[in-house]
Structure formats: C-alpha cells, structure tokens
C-alpha cells in the first residue's frame, strides 16, 4: 500500500543550518500548542458562561442574608463557603460573574460603536477632521483609563449606566485607531475608485464600502477589549465606586471580602477571584487566537 505523505508543513528544526528567529506558532509543536490553548480557552469559557447562567437560576440556596451561618469555610452545602452576612458564596459568585460579564459586554459594545464611528469618519474624511480626531484620541489615551473612569463614575454616582459610560467612554480610542488605519487602506482600493467614478457620494461610500469592511477588525478589537472592561468594572466596584450593592458583581464581592480577609476568611476572596481570573484568561486566550488567525503579521507571544 502506498503511503501518502503530506508536505504541508516546513521541514522540522533539525535540518536548519543555523538558528533563525521564528515564532513557535509556525512550527508543528507550536501550532499544536496554539490549537490546544484555543480549545482550552473555549472550553473554560463555555463552562464559565453556562455556570454563570445556570447556577444562580438552579441553586437551592436562597442567597439571602443568614446571620446564623456567617463566614463558614467551604464545605458541604456551601462549596465556596459563606460571606460576612452568611450568604452562600457559590451562588453569589456565579451571579456576580454574570453581572460582571454583562456590564463588560455592554460597555465594550459602547466603546466599539463609538470607536468605529470616530475611526471611520477620521479615516475617510482625512485632512483637518482626521488630525483633530486623532489628537483627541491621543489626549484620551494620555489620561490613565481607570482614573478617567473614576472621574466619570464619581460624578454620576453608583448606577449601572455610570459604570457602562465610564468604561465605554475611556476605551473607544483603541478601536478608533485600528478602524482608522483600516479605512485608510480601504480608501485606495479599486472598488472605491469605481464607486467614486460612478458618482457615489461620500456618505454612500462610507456606508456601503467602508463600514462593512471594517467590521472584522472592529469586532476583533472589541473582543480584545472585553478583558479590560471586566478589569475596569471589577476595579471600580471593588473601590466602592461601581455597581450598587443589589447588583453585586465580582468586584463588589471582593470589596466586601477585604475586611473578611483580615479575619482569616480567605475563601471570600479566593473563589470569586479565581472565577474572575479564569474568565479573563479564557477571553484573552480566545482573542489572541483570533488575532493570530486574522492578522498573522501581529502574531506574537506578547499581549500588549
């Protein structure tokens, strides 16, 4: 029987006559590692999302305050233990994760829409509009994002809308920059020339030829933003500037846990933090895999 061998991968490292810089992502082992990392990210994220939806819904625990069982260590009945008010941390953490993710998703959406509009307008109008908008982007990026976010939430007191705005209004600049450079590339394409010579107006070109074409890049930078949004939401809530107590996110739970840690109740911080870190890593792992696939030139082991 004839064995068919595929030659779709470059020869392995043994044949090279000198060491050259190469990304591990290109090698057989590296590809396998990337793929398994992607699979792991997807699996972890799926489990986390499913649990975040199902656990608070199906949980037998009421999640109500119970001063008879305050700060109980993890054990049967309370897999994550209970908090300072005797609430079951298992139910509370998953519900908190759901809220954190929801707020992060909505804020990311706000940033992405705002950034895409600014980027498209700047890129396609060019000239003074472009220069002015890009200087604005630079200015927004010169203020530390958490600080600007704090200024925004502080002045509109702890509501969900304030948190969403605070994250949304600070993170659009990155998206705007990505979208703008994409649009600058698109402007020179022959089909845009064709549309202009056929008499298409500026708005028509913007709507029909630019916006649909920037969607892939914009959605990639949106996914890359999600971990940042989760971090900002939890940080604001942790500081007591974020979500109101009745909409407790992971950040609120960790903020409540600060004093509990001093009393030795490590689980009040450890378990919610574990959920938070797992979610962040899974989302950024997925985003990195997507970026490597669509923008091979940016492929790198660094995440900036």
């Amino acid at each position, binding site marked *: 029987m004839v064995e068919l061998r595929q030659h779709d991968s470059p020869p392995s490292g043994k044949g090279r006559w000198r060491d050259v810089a190469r990304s591990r992502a290109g090698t057989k082992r590296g590809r396998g590692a990337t793929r398994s990392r992607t699979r792991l990210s997807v699996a972890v994220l799926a489990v986390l999302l499913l649990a975040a939806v199902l656990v608070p819904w199906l949980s037998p625990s009421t999640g109500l305050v119970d001063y008879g069982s305050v700060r109980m260590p993890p054990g049967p009945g309370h897999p994550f233990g209970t908090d300072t008010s005797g609430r079951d941390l298992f139910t509370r953490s998953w519900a908190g994760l759901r809220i954190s993710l929801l707020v992060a998703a909505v804020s990311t959406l706000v940033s992405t829409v705002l950034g895409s509009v600014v980027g498209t307008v700047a890129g396609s109008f060019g000239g003074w509009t472009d220069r002015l908008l890009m200087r604005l982007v630079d200015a927004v990026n010169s203020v*530390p994002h958490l600080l600007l976010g704090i200024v925004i939430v502080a002045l509109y007191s702890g509501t969900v809308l304030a948190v969403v705005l605070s994250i949304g209004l600070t993170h659009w600049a990155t998206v705007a920059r990505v979208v703008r450079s994409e649009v600058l590339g698109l402007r020179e394409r022959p089909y845009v020339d064709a549309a202009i010579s056929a008499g298409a107006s500026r708005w028509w070109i913007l709507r029909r030829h630019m916006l649909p074409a920037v969607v892939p890049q914009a959605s990639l930078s949106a996914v890359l933003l999600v971990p940042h949004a989760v971090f900002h939401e939890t940080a604001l809530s942790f500081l007591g500037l974020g979500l109101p107590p009745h909409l407790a996110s992971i950040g609120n739970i960790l903020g409540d846990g600060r004093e509990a840690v001093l009393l030795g109740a490590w689980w009040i911080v450890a378990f919610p933090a574990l959920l938070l870190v797992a979610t962040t890593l899974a989302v950024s792992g997925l985003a990195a895999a997507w970026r490597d696939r669509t923008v091979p030139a940016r492929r790198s082991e660094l995440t900036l």
Partner: protein
Amino acid sequence: MERRGLDAEELRSAVWSAHRAGGRSAAVLWLVLRRLVWAVPVLLLVSLGVFLLAAASPFDPIHQYYGVRIYDASAADVARVRAELGLDRPVLARFWEWLSGLFSGDLGVSRSMRQPVVEVVAQRLPWTLLLAGTGLLLAVVFSLVVGTVAAWRQGGWLDRTVTAVGHALEGVPPFVLALLAIALFSLGLGWLPVAGLTDAGSSLGLGQVLEHLVLPAAVLGVSQAPWLVLHVRQSLLTALTEDHVNGARARGMSERIVVLRHALPTALLPFVTLIGARVPELVTGAVLVEEVFSWPGVASAVVTAAKAADYPLLAVLTLLATAAVLLGSLLADIAAILLDPRVATDG
C-alpha cells in the same frame, strides 16, 4: 495597550534637526519643545473635560459640603454658602477662575479633605513617588534578570515557567494580588504589616516606613512585571539572532559577553520605550494598591475625592496623572535618542 512611543514622523524631524544643528542634544531639545507644545492643549482639554463632566453631573456639591445638616440649614444660608463656594456661577467662568488660580499657585480647597489642594498634593505626592518608584524599580530589575535568563535558555524549565506564570499573571488584577499577599504574608506568615505607613502609635521612622513599604511595592512591581519580563524575553530572542551577535559568536567570544554586551543592549532600546508607555498602568496599579494598603498617597486620595464628588481635588489629581503619562513617554524617548547611536546617524 497602545504603544505610545516615538512615532516615525517625530523621529524623522528630530533626526533632521539634529543633523542641521549638529548634535544629539539639539535633537533632545527639539523633542522636549515639541512635547511641551503638545502637552498644553492636552492638559487644558483634560481639565476642561473634568469641569464639564462635573457641571453635567446631577450631584449637587452643596449636599457634600453640608452633609445631613442641609436639612436644618435655611435656604438663605445655603444660597450664601453656594455663592461663597462659587457654585452659582456658570461652569466656564468657574473653569477660567480655576485656571488662573492654577498659574498663581492656588488650586482651590479640597472639600473632602477640608484643606487646600496644594497641601493635599504636597503631603501625599512624596509617598506615591516612593511607592511607585520602588515598585517600578523592582519590576524593571526583576524583569531584566529573569527575562534575560529565560531568553538565553529558551525552552528550558525557567523559560517555560516564566512564560506560563507571566501570561497567567496578566489576567490577575492588582487588587486581587494585594489581598492575596496580605492573606499570605501578613496574616498567614505574619512577616509584614497589613497596611498603613507605620504601626499604630509609633512615630514616623525609616525602619517603620521600609517595613510597611515592602508589601505594597512588591505587589505593584509584580502587577507590572509580566509585560516587562515577556517583552525583555521576546526582544532578546530577536536580538540573539541578529548579525552582530552571530559575528560576536564567530569571533569566539564567551557566551556571557555575547549575551550581556552584544545582544542585551539591542534588546534594551524597545524596553525603555515600553517602560515609558507603562506609566498609565502604573498609575492604575498605584490607585488600587494604595487603596488596599491604606497608603497615604495621592492615588488613594483619588478614591476619597471620587466618593465625595470633590472635583477641585479630582481635577488636579487627573491633571497630575496626565502630566505623569506625558512625562513618562517624553523621558523614554529622550533615553531612546541618547542610547541609540543610530537615531543620530541614520538619515
């Protein structure tokens, strides 16, 4: 997120003017001038932004001034205080007044701290600089050592551990790190104090401050280290395959000299730019770390001011942080010009 480095246009103009004036100091001077000119509109825009946001807020600062006593105060008194605080005038008038105060050294009065903003900043800024400086120094030294070893022994156990832990730590927020560090080192092992600048009742001394500095500075350093370590490792890996390194190896130089004297200097250049670009994250980390460790710096004052909607203080602190970011990227770019002979010889 963004690399806020020297962009091509700026580099070109710096090189060009350096050639004309002859010398690298001219290039630095030119860069400083350009950045100063750029910093003015940014700082103006940022402070105007804070004022406009504050004006649009539904929160009335008079409630914060009075607290619950507002219910006992007569309408005339409230109106009088409002006029004294200047809250009855339009926002742009207040902004203008604040701005002219800024140039005469009068930054207004912080309502949450009940003391002039200048005093708040003067008392707290040194502590923040101490904490952030120590944290950054720890992170830089650590990442240079570990990143170099990891790249030198690529694929070894240290490299694999460092890469895995680095990527994992990127997902851990500084406040989680801080809480875990307190749980482990202060409560579990009892090695270091939980929070504050000194033990309760003891006076301010060098030993006390150092003992209390260790944990927050270490947490701040660790929270910044992953990006720096992975960056040093990556750029050293690239540098190790460049021609001049191959040349050095061909001349039979020792591995030590090749790595430390030939490869590392090339790798350091982008690293300097990265450090400058990390200032916003350093500020973010300082806010969270100072808050958890009750460190009496300006960053934790941000949180106090925010909770009280104390925008005279908040505006100044935001401005201070923005200036720090701009200064960070300027210093990094000056270092890049001074360190890299190619900047002045290309052309």
